[in-house]
């Protein structure tokens, strides 16, 4: 178990270093244009650019710059954002927090909902309830977020006038503004998790030990809750961990549409504005979240499933 954890963490760090190298080559070198011109803007002259390069150490050898850059990153010095004219961390953290709030509510509703429906559906494969849940899940999952966002806006904002049209929270946090973005994310993602749970549950229900439990006369409720559920939830656990990953990129569309000031919108803004330092930080955060959730999923999976742990 310990070796596994150490190995996983080692792999995690290795992945991040590789990604950082790619990022550095793409954004900090002349491969994609002069960084000085990007930072100083179109009216800057060569003199100002040279001065900037000198001040910011852009005239040093590339290898040395990379090591320094990596060191800065590791110590939390993320640089200055061009668009926001301030330290990257000051912009990034509140935005991450906003996305975390959106993610929290999305998951808080989506996970219990999809697990319950998945389990109900998988308990009796082929029943009317199963068919209904499956069809509904496929339907919502196959509608892309930008389409459901338009649909919900047309219905709840322009039609019924129940909900505010955008979620910029400019006057402070307001739960009402969170409903539409969360709804779009939940509707899109719930079908996927529900169907994974259903498949897993259905498989468990056909296994020998469940048949034994039923035949030895245990109450049905207890068979489901005590015997089937624990095994059936192993697969959905990994899927859910991966959804955190998905959320970080999935929110870009939703945050853009509803003007929610989160991490997804920030990635878009950073790339549209050539904001190198900010883009680097966003990319590193996204990669960090991806490998961390992956590692947790791997370790958690072994923990839940002794067959992997001991083989």
């Amino acid at each position, binding site marked *: 178990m310990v070796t596994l954890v150490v190995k996983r963490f080692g792999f995690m760090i290795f992945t991040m270093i590789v990604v950082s190298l790619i990022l550095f080559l793409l954004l900090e070198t002349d491969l994609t244009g002069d960084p000085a011109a990007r930072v100083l803007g179109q009216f800057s002259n060569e003199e100002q650019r040279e001065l900037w390069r000198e001040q910011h150490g852009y005239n040093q050898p590339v290898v040395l710059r990379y090591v320094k850059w990596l060191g800065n990153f590791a110590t939390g010095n993320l640089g200055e954002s061009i668009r926001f004219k301030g330290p990257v961390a000051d912009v990034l953290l509140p935005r991450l927090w906003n996305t975390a709030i959106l993610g929290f509510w999305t998951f808080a509703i989506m996970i219990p909902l999809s697990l319950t429906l998945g389990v109900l559906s998988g308990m009796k494969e082929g029943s009317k309830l199963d068919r209904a849940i499956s069809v509904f899940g496929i339907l919502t999952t196959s509608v892309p977020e930008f389409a459901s966002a338009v649909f919900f806006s047309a219905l709840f904002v*322009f039609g019924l006038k129940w909900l505010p049209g955008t979620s910029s929270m400019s006057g402070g946090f307001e739960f009402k503004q969170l409903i539409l973005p969360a709804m779009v994310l939940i509707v899109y993602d719930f079908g996927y998790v529900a169907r994974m749970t259903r498949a897993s549950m259905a498989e468990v229900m056909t296994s020998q030990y469940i048949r034994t439990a039923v035949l030895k006369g245990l109450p049905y409720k207890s068979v489901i809750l005590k015997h089937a559920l624990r095994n059936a939830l192993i697969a959905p656990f990994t899927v859910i961990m991966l959804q955190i990953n998905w959320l970080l990129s999935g929110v870009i569309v939703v945050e853009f549409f509803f003007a929610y000031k989160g991490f997804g919108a920030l990635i878009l803004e950073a790339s549209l504005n050539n904001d190198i330092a900010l883009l680097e930080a966003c990319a590193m955060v996204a990669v960090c979240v991806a490998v961390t959730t992956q590692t947790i999923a791997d370790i958690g999976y072994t923990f839940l499933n002794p067959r992997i742990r001991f083989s």
Partner: protein
Amino acid sequence: MTDEKQATRRIHPGVEKMKEALADGKCSRREFLRTATLLGVSATAAYGIASNILGEDVLPDFVSSAMAADQKKGGVLKFGMVVQEMADPGTYSWTQKSIVARHIIEYLVETGPDNITRPNLAESWEASDDLKTWTFHLRKGVKWSNGDDFNADDVVFNFTRWLDPKTGSSNLGLFDAMLEETGEKDKKGNPVKRMIKNAVQKVDPHTVKITLKSAVLSIPENLYNYPTGIVHRNFEKEGGDFSKNPVGTGPYELAEFKVGELAVLKKRNAPYWGGEVFLDEIRFVDLGEDAGAYLAAIASGQVDGLYELDLTTLEAAKNIPGIKVISIPSTQTGLIRMKVTEKPFTDIRVRKAVQKCCDVKRMLDIAHRGLGIVAEHHHVAKIHPEYFALPPIKQDIEGAKKLLAEAGYPKGIELSCNVGNTDGVWEQDSVAVLKEDAAKAGINIKMNVMPSAQYWDVWTKAPLSLTSWTHRPLAVMVLGLAYRTGVPWNESSYANPEFDAALNEAESTLDVEKRRAKMEKVEKILQDDAVLVQPFFRSVFTAIRENVVGFEMHPTRYYRFHKVSLA
């Protein structure tokens, strides 16, 4: 407006000439008002003179002052608009930045929605008969928010700063008549310029004299161009960052500022020289770049007004109850300009061939739904006062083919056109229509659509690209910014001494008839040199909620909410 109080010290002889022209029907009342106010006559007096001459009431096109009595004080106006960094008012390249700043700092003059320029921080001004010396009398008793008195030092500081090439201000092009060549050349081979010594002088603490090397009529109008907001004389000493140290003379102060999110202005406690403002607070709410988000926000009452209404959301907005859609013609436009220093556009025949492919009417109808007026490839609009009507231009595909063959491309040519949709997708649609027509002549245009912010990194560099230009009340203003040799915004690198001379002459001619006659040459040179394909000048729209009182659409979107209140 406090221009009623303005003391007209001396009537410029040009005003007498204008009076005669108005009486003889040689100039329009608009032209009279514009020129008379530029020459230092107060707006009220100019409207009065016009009424006397014409024997009928000539009233302002807008009614803000008349409304004041019924307007309610207090309230918070929420306005949907992107919030960008706004560190240096002298180098703004987006109108939106100036709209936030416009409530904190002020301009020497103000050009209203009726295109008339009125006194603001300058109480009055006079021009010498040759239009080479301009004297501005500054308003007394105006206080900066840090307690200092506003005076001539502030104005001298601002001019000096704008006209220092190191600042990188686009105002360099506007005040070219205050510059001289240093003898050095920049990398592109254009002469480096600097401000002529004593071009701006403090006469006394409240009088500033501007001396020009050639006559310019539009000095006051230039002073309301959006990067000419007057900052405090210690702006640079105190860090040079306006959003961190927002010292101003205006009625509002910056209470909160988050780029990409929000800018909050609060009414200052100190009395404001310009009289009562109604709103307690103005909140600029950034809703990103999606036109749909702005529409959803105004539909659900999250904002009371929008910076702009996209062409794609115009019809939808008209159908939402509680919302007013406002539209006015303007000289905002999209220029498909060809960089004359880049191959293949170094050859005028190629440029002419591209120009000949353009069907202006078709482009207007398809790309902007016919909402606007057609243009003639010389950046002067029919609604510009100095517009001279040249013979109409027509699409000529055969002619284009012939020119192309002469230029050495008998089998056609491949071009790539950048478009950033900085003001909407009509930009992309315009290029698409040109692409279709040009293909008939063997010109194969590849469209390179890029995000708007990235576009501004390459706009002066790309060989072929569509750039959106904002409205300017006088044609000479925009021509000086965009086509004069070596100015920062000359994106086509056009350099023609003959054009520069003709423009200088037009700029220095007061008489409308004569100036219009001189514009013939200016327009003709620019059109014949085929620097740009300019299909149309577009109308501008926006939407506000019905509870907003006193909102005036401005052709340049230089919104100012001093006279706006909530019902």
